[in-house]
């Protein structure tokens, strides 16, 4: 077959069409695509916003649990026994539990000559899997003079609030990391002075962490005792907001870090709403394509005689389908491009006006949104071609 012109055939196919159905389907498609793209971009924005404060690591939530101190149990030993920790570990919704063990000897920290600061402190240790930021040097072996420290970001913030009142200099994270801290450890069985240095800051753990090997060694060395039962336990769970977990903790009268689980819950709700918006967008796109298929069926029904005669005199249904389908490609491109532009404008406004240009976000659409738009265009075009082919082969 040569390359016949479609121009002369076009009036035979689009006879007395009612364009309102077609326009409704275009508008519907535009709205559906817009909802879908917006949902995706918002989902990405929320992910970026919560990244800084996320308590998740490797797909798990890590939350600290303590026993609730009440008037009834005050004065008792409210630390977690090995049995308590085993019970936690056996729960299906808990993927791991680690006690936060502490020092059983006295520790005084000094900040050297430059910063006249000395204070009794406590040291704690936790399995490294449960720590959010574990640098390579966070290890200790007997005989090692320098003890690596992981310092709570909250503690540094607190120090910087009170430091000026005591005539002490405020410290940035970088400066604090360079200060050599003196650790004077003393117990019943002896004592020793160590040098310590902050190797990382933790957002998750409000404590001064040392390697577990150091604390086990020091408790034994200076106090002659093994590391004691812990008053805090970290648990690893797939969902900190799981009702099973929260119910279990409530029945055990355990207290969790409420702020973080509450934040997790609102994040979950927000993501649910956005996912709902996305699903609604998919439905609208589906409905729009369905409406468009009705329009095509109507068009083919109206032009049935002409189409049949074209096929009778030697026009290939394959060629006719491609020609008819091709008419709608620019419309699909325009509809998706319009939805993309509106999404971009809304994202720009959201970032600049509502989020005050926060650095975690971008004013521009995420590349995956562009990819979705391209996929939607290709899908619409292919669906359209398939529908036209089905109709034309049906009458040939």
């Amino acid at each position: 077959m040569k390359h016949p012109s479609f121009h002369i055939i076009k009036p035979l196919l689009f006879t007395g069409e009612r364009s309102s159905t077609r326009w409704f389907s275009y508008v519907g498609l535009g709205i559906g695509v817009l909802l879908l793209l917006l949902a995706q971009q918002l989902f990405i924005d929320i992910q970026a916003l919560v990244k800084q404060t996320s308590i998740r690591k490797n797909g798990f939530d890590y939350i600290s649990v303590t026993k609730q101190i009440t008037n009834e149990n005050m004065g008792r030993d409210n630390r977690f026994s090995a049995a308590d920790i085993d019970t936690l570990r056996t729960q299906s919704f808990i993927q791991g539990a680690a006690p936060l063990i502490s020092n059983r000897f006295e520790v005084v920290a000094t900040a050297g000559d430059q910063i006249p600061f000395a204070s009794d402190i406590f040291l704690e240790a936790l399995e490294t899997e449960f720590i959010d930021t574990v640098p390579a040097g966070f290890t200790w072996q007997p005989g090692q003079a320098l003890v690596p420290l992981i310092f709570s970001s909250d503690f540094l913030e607190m120090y910087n609030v009170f430091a000026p009142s005591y005539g002490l200099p405020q410290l940035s994270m970088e400066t604090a990391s360079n200060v050599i801290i003196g650790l004077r450890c003393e117990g019943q069985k002896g004592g020793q002075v160590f040098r310590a240095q902050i190797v990382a800051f933790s957002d998750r753990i409000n404590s001064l962490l040392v390697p577990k090997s150091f604390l086990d060694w020091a408790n034994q060395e200076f106090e002659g005792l093994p590391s004691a039962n812990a008053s805090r336990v970290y648990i690893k769970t797939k969902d900190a907001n799981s009702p099973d977990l929260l119910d279990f903790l409530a029945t055990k009268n355990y207290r969790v870090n409420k702020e973080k689980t509450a934040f997790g819950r609102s994040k979950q709700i927000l993501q649910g709403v956005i996912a709902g918006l996305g699903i609604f967008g998919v439905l609208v796109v589906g409905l729009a394509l369905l409406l468009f298929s009705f329009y095509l069926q109507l068009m083919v029904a109206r032009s049935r005689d002409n189409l049949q005669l074209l096929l009778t005199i030697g026009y290939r249904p394959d060629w006719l389908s491609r020609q008819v389908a091709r008419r709608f490609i620019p419309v699909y491109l325009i509809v998706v491009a319009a939805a993309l532009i509106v999404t971009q404008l809304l994202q720009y406004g959201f970032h600049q006006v509502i989020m005050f240009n926060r650095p975690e976000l971008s004013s521009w659409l995420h590349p995956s949104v562009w990819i979705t738009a391209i996929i939607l265009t290709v899908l619409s075009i292919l669906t359209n071609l398939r529908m036209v082919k089905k109709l034309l082969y049906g009458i040939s």
Partner: protein
Amino acid sequence: MLQLQKIIPTYFDPATCAHSELWLKSIEVEPGERIQIQAPSGSGKTSLTHFLYGIRNEYSGSIRYDGSELRTLDPDQLADLRREKLAIVFQDMRLFPKPTLRDNFEIKRQLTEHHSKETILDWAGRLGIDHRLDTPAKLCSYGEQQRASIIRALLQPFKWILLDEPFSHLDDANAHKAMQLILEESEKQGAAVLLADLEIVPFYPSSRLIRLLA
């Protein structure tokens, strides 16, 4: 070569077709042959034409063009056969009603560009419809539409041409002119002509007569 192997409409009783020279017979049509099919009303003339053109399939037996079974061709292959090898003049003309005669011709011509636009003008002049070229087909008389339908059929390469009562709306003078044009063009292409009519067409120089009968 066109081969018909014992074809018969499924709605015909084989017992009543015993005298037919086509139904349930094996027939071969050689290139360049001129076949006259005489078919009284109700003997299945139009059905036969539609079977041969692949529009309808309510028949048993087999129809083969150059060895290819017509019934097994997919819609695109059938379109290729109709465009490149098999021409037809329908009894009911089947022109696009709204487009002009010129556009009707162009819709067919552009498929293969086997003939030029000038040829259309020449043939329209010979058959006396050149003054109607810019008139929508539905406003032309049956006679004009029939002549247009003949010209449209000839605007393609073909090895076989099927004519179903092609002169039913034409006077003798116009029928002769149309016949002449068909014969000229089929001779040029070495094509076989199968003309089906109620009576024998006296000015058709056929090489074989087949009585359809039912």
